[in-house]
């Protein structure tokens, strides 16, 4: 075997390591760019090189073939540990990373997220204590010894989790060890320099004794290596001795270099260094808004129209295939694959990553202008229907029909639903103004609007001062060149993403160039309604609860125990009811259950909170706190649809091939049924549900604080809702761990 080829093909791209290193590099470079401009003396370019070098050393240790070789050879494993402890750690500290990393973080994360922890006196005291030389040296030595204990070491060799934890411990211990030596700015000088020589000498003695025990022992410390076949004729004892020698030799240069640096500093040429700190500060440099630049590109009407046209063409293909293509198996029909497997999965992922892009590219609204011109929009939508009650009913019907009539398995009816959707949109948009279909009818739109409350971006005004001086309000009314907001949102008072289709008409219409995409913390937009300072709406609460409970009911309806229970119930009731039982149970689970549980939680919270200060009504609590469950519901939708997308990912090729063959555009080839491989699920689903629970609790706490007079009453007010979220989370865990019906697959 070509050894070079074998080594080059053995790079592993562990997602956690790759993403962690990428994020660290990104935040550091962002912060460093500003600091280098402001304090060039304190942050010269070599510090950036050192930090990136440290990250590169971590990458080589954890991602390169060295990581794979470490399971085969002890000496490779020791080289890996040396890279982490002897090279990466000092290089990272030489990059003076504390301030650049903090400056590189988004300001809201730093102030609201990390701020309280950074200012926590107990944490600061603990950090001060362990970064003193004696504790640092002791912890470093203990961690090194503990992980080289045969039982611990071999456990790490056997289990990837403990292996990664071992590496994390080594890197943390090494960072602790090197901290007193390098004392990266802005650390205050705590150590008298001569003492550092003793510190380094102690470390060198420890290294010598430790390495010598490996190099001169006649006993194999780690018998697991003897059981692993290797392509080299190297005995485990020889490998162990080589590892000891490597540790011995490799540990000397970093310590020696550090000692030389300490001595040089003691002999010190400090006046120049001191002068550096007195340079006047340069003005901070603006880094520019990345989201703004993205907005400038995505707000292009041409791009949006192109996406809409592409989806329109796809919809046409789905309709034609649904009508005229084979009905069984449905996964061989485009109408059975694209809407139910692909579109839903991609839509929820896009929602999480970039906001309501599905609405921006919605093909149903492509003919909106044509409809308005042909039909003239002569009517006003009835005032009684200008809320979300009709969408609540339509969304419930949609989920019920999906399960009762197995729409995912019926290409014919899927095609008719799409045609009906286009017709309804054309008619409603032609007869009524201001995005009536999107705001008051479209169930898909409501799903997107409610769930986009947790998306990381929103369209908003950049400067409130500019808006307050604006007299034309083109973002809402439009002008001669560009239409205003199609759903009637006014940017200066708009809150979150409710009713926002991300069409960015407002961005194009604003004559002051004051609108665009902006970052948003997850869940901040929830519970606000369409505009700030608006009262909480019970119709929005009902929609939020329906979408949340619908997520669990919809996913639960496809797991085996629920299907069996439905069949047993149908048998007990009589065969005539068999087809309707699952749909009715689903309907009850997503409507009756929340209608009972939400007021119960609100009433319980009201009683618990007591009569301190203003006491909100049960209705107000339901209206205000229900949106807190949206993140949990969204995580269930995401887990559910991602599962379908993953398991059905291979179905597009045979379905497209079949459709092209029927048109005579492809030769037609037999397809192979490809069952899903890999171990991504259900673990990913559990992670998603966990994240949803955490965000739900955080949003619930924020909303409860806004209702109650103090933290105590807010806690008691929110407790029943937290319990409800926990119950939903537990039911989600149960659902994802059950055997699931494989829908939309060719198996």
């Amino acid at each position, binding site marked *: 075997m070509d050894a070079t080829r074998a080594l080059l093909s053995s790079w592993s*791209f562990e997602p956690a390591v790759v993403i962690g290193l990428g994020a660290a590099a990104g935040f550091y470079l962002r912060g460093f760019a500003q600091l280098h401009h402001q304090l060039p003396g304190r942050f010269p370019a070599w510090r950036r090189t050192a930090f990136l070098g440290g990250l590169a050393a971590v990458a080589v240790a954890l991602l390169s073939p060295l990581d794979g070789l470490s399971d085969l050879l002890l000496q490779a494993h020791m080289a890996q540990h040396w890279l982490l402890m002897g090279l990466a750690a000092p290089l990272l500290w030489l990059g003076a990373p504390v301030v650049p990393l903090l400056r590189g973080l988004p300001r809201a994360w730093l102030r609201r997220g990390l701020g309280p922890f950074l200012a926590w006196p107990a944490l600061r005291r603990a950090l001060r204590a362990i970064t003193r030389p004696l504790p640092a040296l002791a912890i470093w030595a203990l961690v090194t010894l503990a992980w080289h204990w045969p039982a611990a070491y071999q456990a790490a060799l056997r289990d990837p989790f403990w292996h990664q934890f071992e590496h994390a411990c080594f890197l943390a211990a090494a960072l602790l060890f090197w901290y007193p030596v390098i004392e990266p700015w802005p650390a205050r000088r705590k150590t008298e320099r001569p003492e550092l020589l003793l510190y380094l000498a102690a470390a060198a003695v420890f290294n010598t004794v430790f390495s010598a025990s490996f190099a001169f022992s006649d006993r194999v410390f780690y018998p697991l290596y003897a059981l692993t076949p290797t*392509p080299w004729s190297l005995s485990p004892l020889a490998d162990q001795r080589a590892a000891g020698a490597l540790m011995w030799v490799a540990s000397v240069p970093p310590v020696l270099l550090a000692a030389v640096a300490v001595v040089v500093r003691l002999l010190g040429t400090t006046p120049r260094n001191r002068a550096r700190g007195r340079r006047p500060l340069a003005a901070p440099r603006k880094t520019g808004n990345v989201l703004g630049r993205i907005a400038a590109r995505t707000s292009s009407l041409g791009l949006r129209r192109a996406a809409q046209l592409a989806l329109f063409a796809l919809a046409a293909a789905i309709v034609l295939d649904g009508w005229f293509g084979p009905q069984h198996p449905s996964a061989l029909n485009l109408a059975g694959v694209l809407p139910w497997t692909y579109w839903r999965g991609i839509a929820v992922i896009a929602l999480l990553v970039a906001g309501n892009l599905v609405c921006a590219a919605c093909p149903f609204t492509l003919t909106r202008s044509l409809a308005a011109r042909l039909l003239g929009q002569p009517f006003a939508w009835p005032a009684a229907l200008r809320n979300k009650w009709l969408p609540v009913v339509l969304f419930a019907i949609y989920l019920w029909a999906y399960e009762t009539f197995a729409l995912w398995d019926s290409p014919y009816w899927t095609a008719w639903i799409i045609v009906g959707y286009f017709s309804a949109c054309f008619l409603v948009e032609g007869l009524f103004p201001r995005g009536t279909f999107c705001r008051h009818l479209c169930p898909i739109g409501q799903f997107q609007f409610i769930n986009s409350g947790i998306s990381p971006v929103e369209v908003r005004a950049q400067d409130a001062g500019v808006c307050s001086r604006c007299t034309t309000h083109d973002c809402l009314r439009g002008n001669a060149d560009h239409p205003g907001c199609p759903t009637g949102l006014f940017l200066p008072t708009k809150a979150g993403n409710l009713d926002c289709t991300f069409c960015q008409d407002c961005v194009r219409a604003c004559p002051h160039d004051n609108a665009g995409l902006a970052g948003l913390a997850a869940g901040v937009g929830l519970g606000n309604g369409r505009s700030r300072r608006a009262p909480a709406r019970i119709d929005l609460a009902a929609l939020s609860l329906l979408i949340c409970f619908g997520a669990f009911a919809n996913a639960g309806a496809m797991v085996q125990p629920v299907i069996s229970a439905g069949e047993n119930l149908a048998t007990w009731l009589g065969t005539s009811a068999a087809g309707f039982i699952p749909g009715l149970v689903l309907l009850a689970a997503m409507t009756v259950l929340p209608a009972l549980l939400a007021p119960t939680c609100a009433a319980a919270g009201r009683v618990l909170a007591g009569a301190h200060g203003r006491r909100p009504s049960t209705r107000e609590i339901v209206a205000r706190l229900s949106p807190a469950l949206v993140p949990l519901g969204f995580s269930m939708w995401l887990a559910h649809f991602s599962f379908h997308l993953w398991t059905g990912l291979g179905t597009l090729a045979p379905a497209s091939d079949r459709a092209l063959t029927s048109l005579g555009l492809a030769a037609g080839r037999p397809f192979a049924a490809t069952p899903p491989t890999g171990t991504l699920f259900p673990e990913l689903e559990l992670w998603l549900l966990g994240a949803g629970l955490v965000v739900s609790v955080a949003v619930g706490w924020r909303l409860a604080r806004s209702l109650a007079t103090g933290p105590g009453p807010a806690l008691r007010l929110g407790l029943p809702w937290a319990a409800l979220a926990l119950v939903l989370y537990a039911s989600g865990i149960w659902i994802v761990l059950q055997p699931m019906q494989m829908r939309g697959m060719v198996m």
Partner: protein
Amino acid sequence: MPPRLSLCARWKRWETWSGILAVFAGLAVSAPARGDLGVLVADGNAGPYRVSVLVAPVPVRAGPSQWSVLVQDAGGNPVDAVEVSLEWQPPDPHAGILRVATPGRHPFYRSSNVMLPKTATWRVGVRVRGDEGSGRLAFDIHVAPRLGTWRTYWPALLVPALALVLFLVHQFLKLREPRVPRSREPRVPRSREPRVPG
């Protein structure tokens, strides 16, 4: 207003950011099997080759496992130009699983992830095809019962609990923070929503 960038410069920035994102997304998605090697479960000859099979985690349980194979020639040198396929056969003859092992994290080894669905004594076959010929090594392995849900997925269940504790500490610390008096800077007047028909 910031100076406008030339189209070329804007494209380059856009392209750079997209490229970085795409690389990270690609790396995250294309992550190969990450299990450690585990322990040797079979070692023998398959035609002209010597084949060693390792599996992790040990003991093998129903659920996901990673299988690694080292193929050597008679002289003990690792052989590259071979196709290695693994087949797991439970007592039920219709439920066999077949996988082709590919180069993974460990140099010279080929590996494959598999989800063994049930507890049984499985017959494992390793087929090696290369220039020097082909051969098969077969052996039996007992697959122990699956670990309980909590023991299998404890990190995914523990981390949300830890995150909630961290959130509680965060909020507790925020509540202890002294209140900062409001800024005396003049406030921007609020915009009033204009009335639009419809």
